[in-house]
Every structure is written in structure tokens, then in C-alpha cells.
């Protein structure tokens, strides 16, 4: 059973909390590829939250997760990038709204995957442009640095999304098609 995307019960709240924690925690892991940019497997998690719980949960979990990670590592929040994380997840979560897609019960079709990839890539690029613009506009960051950073981050995030995120969601859906009693879907 798919729930409305705006329904908030204790479970959703906890899921968002734990999701944010997961994103925040895994954001520590990364293979550096540029200044302040790295291949972060955490991006795959945004895909998972989005696909499994919808854009709203994805957005909040991504945002809070990023903010907390920032707070915990340096004490400073880069709001542009934090919002960016949320936006990415929200875009990826658009797939949740489309008809017939329900990974929790193992229901998905080929076209969903195509759509998911499309949403994901658009989301990544859009959110990074947003973050870059935000930094220039509000934080007074030098713009040349940001061009490099945004490009590097887009590429690395798309790679992670395609290599880890999409297969993870498909794998999850496949598994749920078989096993009916996963702890997640009770």
C-alpha cells in the first residue's frame, strides 16, 4: 500500500530522522575528486529515500542529513548545498508519484527505470546549479571556484547515482517482489 506523500505519522517522522542520520553519516565517506567534492555513495541513499518514501520525505531527510553533517564536521552549514541535497532527493522522489511504481511491494516497469534515471539526472544538475548560485549570491563565494566545483560534483554524483542508486532501488524492488516480510514494509 502506497501512502499519500504528505501523510506524516510517527513512522514517517522516524524514517525521515533515521534517513537523515544515514545520509549525514554516510556523507563522511567519499573518494575525493576535486575541491570539497568527492564521489559520495550517500547520493545513492537520496535515490533510495526518494523512490521508497516520496519527494517530501526525501527532501526533508536530505536537507536535515546534510545540515547535520555540516554541523558535525565543521560547525558551519552550507545552506545552498544542504538545500541542494534536499532538492536532489525530491527530484528523485518524483518517481514515487508515478502510477504503478511501488518498490515496497516489488511493483515497477521498465519505463519507470528510464523515468527514474531522467528525474535523477535532472535533479542532480538542477540542484547543483542551485547550490552554486546560492553560494555566489548569499555566501559571497568566488564564482570561478564554483564552476569547477559544480561540474565536478555533477559528474561524480551522476556516476554514483547510476552505479549505486539505480541498481539499489531495482534490487530492493526485486527483493520485495519475493520476500513479503521485510522489516521495512511492515
Amino acid at each position, binding site marked *: 500500500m502506497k501512502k499519500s506523500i504528505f501523510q506524516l505519522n510517527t513512522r514517517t517522522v522516524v524514517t525521515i530522522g533515521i534517513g537523515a542520520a544515514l545520509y549525514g*553519516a554516510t556523507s*563522511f565517506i567519499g573518494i575525493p575528486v576535486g575541491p570539497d567534492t568527492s564521489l559520495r555513495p550517500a547520493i545513492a541513499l537520496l535515490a533510495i529515500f526518494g523512490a521508497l518514501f516520496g519527494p517530501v520525505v526525501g527532501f526533508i531527510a536530505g536537507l536535515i542529513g546534510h545540515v547535520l553533517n555540516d554541523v558535525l*564536521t565543521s560547525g*558551519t552549514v552550507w545552506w545552498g548545498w544542504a538545500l541542494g541535497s534536499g532538492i536532489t532527493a525530491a527530484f528523485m522522489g518524483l518517481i514515487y508519484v508515478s502510477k504503478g511504481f511501488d518498490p515496497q511491494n516489488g511493483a515497477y516497469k521498465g519505463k519507470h527505470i528510464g523515468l527514474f534515471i531522467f528525474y535523477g539526472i535532472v535533479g542532480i544538475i538542477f540542484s547543483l546549479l542551485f547550490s552554486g548560485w546560492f553560494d555566489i549570491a548569499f555566501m559571497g563565494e568566488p564564482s570561478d571556484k564554483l564552476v569547477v566545483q559544480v561540474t565536478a560534483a555533477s559528474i561524480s554524483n551522476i556516476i554514483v547515482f547510476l552505479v549505486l542508486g539505480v541498481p539499489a532501488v531495482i534490487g530492493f524492488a526485486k527483493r520485495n517482489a519475493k520476500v513479503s516480510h521485510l522489516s521495512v514494509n511492515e
Partner: protein
Amino acid sequence: MREKLLIGRLIDTGSPVHGLDPRAKLTAMLLYAAMVVAARSWPALLGLTAFSFIVMASTRIPLRTYLKAAKPLRVLMLFILIVQCLAVKGGRVLAAAGSWHVDSAGLEAGAYAVVRMVLLVSFTALLTFTTSPGQLNQGVEGMLRPFTRIGISPERLALMTGIALRFIPAILDEAQTIMKAQASRGADMKELPWKEKARMLTALLVPVTVGAFRRAEDLTASMESRGYRLGAPRTQYRPLIWSYRDTGFVAVFVLMCLIVVWIGWI
């Protein structure tokens, strides 16, 4: 991994700053961030630096602990410095190699950006050094109160961030225990070749993710069986109390803000 979290932790020295209302500290931090953005000249920046030192000193936490907070960003800072040096032209030529040359204006812009960053990062660490995550969360909840009108529920948000805060260390620990479990059965991340490492990373992320969702399940169970219901009335064990000292603290920041703007003006 856990050690990385260190800088985000409370260091209890019992200073007056520790005792302030988290809302006051949050407001002050926002003002401070505004000051850093507004400080567009060297005198303003120096004034701000001096101000920062005074406030930092009043927390009785050693200065080097603050500097440590900025350490993870050193690569980024170096990068910014280099980019700025190469990009901004003007003033005296300091060094040249072929068609490349570094100008004094470039160096100045670079140094300027770096100082601002160090200030921002190390000073905002003050918030996390002097406030427990729970208090911080309570503070955020308090700050968001006015937004209830537009449909944001601060309690829920606070609960979400609270859970997230509580579980980040837990998840890191879990990742660590899974790594331990895998290592003690012969798959040590540290000792594997690169390609294997990538494979292991997935072998780590999957159980951590699944584990986290199971935690969500267990935690919901635990909360619900302690009678938690969304929106049900609750009392607070440590309610926030705003005192005149909090007003004073914020006032100092407002004043400093005005000074910075004023310096920028003249």
C-alpha cells in the same frame, strides 16, 4: 570515523556561554554569519576577528580546539587561495612564470576569502562546542515556533533532527561494527586492494542501510510503546528560559553587526 564527529561535540567547561539559552546562541550565530558576509574590507574583517577572539576566549575552550574545527577545510582553502591568486589580476606582480603571474591583488583576495572562511567555520563551531545537541535542537524548535502559522510543525522537525542527531553516531558505530564483523571474518577494508575496496564499500552500505531502516522500525516501536503519539501534549524536562543575559549576548552581536556595517560604509 567517530573521531571526525569530535568537533561537533559539546566541550563542557561550564563557562557563562555554556549556560546561555540556545536560541540566543543561534540568533548570535545568524548575526555572525551576516557579519562575515557583510565584512567587505580589511578593517571590518580585522575588527570581526578581534571580536571573535574575545567571544571564543569567554568560552574557556582553548583556541586551538577552534582551529581544529577549520582543519578539515584546509584543502579547500588552499584551493581557493590558488584560484583567487591566479584569477584576480592587478597591483604588483609578485611572481611570474611564463604567461602566468600572481599579483598582489590576487593574493589579497585569496587571503581575504580564506580568513573569512576560517572565521566562519571556527566561530560557528562555538555553537556546537557550548551547546548539547539536544539543547541545540530545542533551540531550533524554539526559533521555528513563529512558522507554525505557515504549516511547519516545529515539534516534528525537532523530533526528526533529534532522531537524526542521535543516530548519526549510532549509524557510524554500526558501520564500524559491521566492518569489525566483516574484518573478524577475514575481510578487512584496510587490507584489501582498491577494486575489492569498492566492492566492500557496497557490502558495507547495504547492511548499514538495511540496518538503519530496521532501526527506524525498532525505534518507532520503542517510541510508540512509550506512549508517544504525534501531536499529543508533552511537557519539557528542561524548558528553555530566556534571561537578561541572553538579551545582553544578542545585543552585543547586534552592536557588532552595526559596527561592521558602519566600517564598511566609511
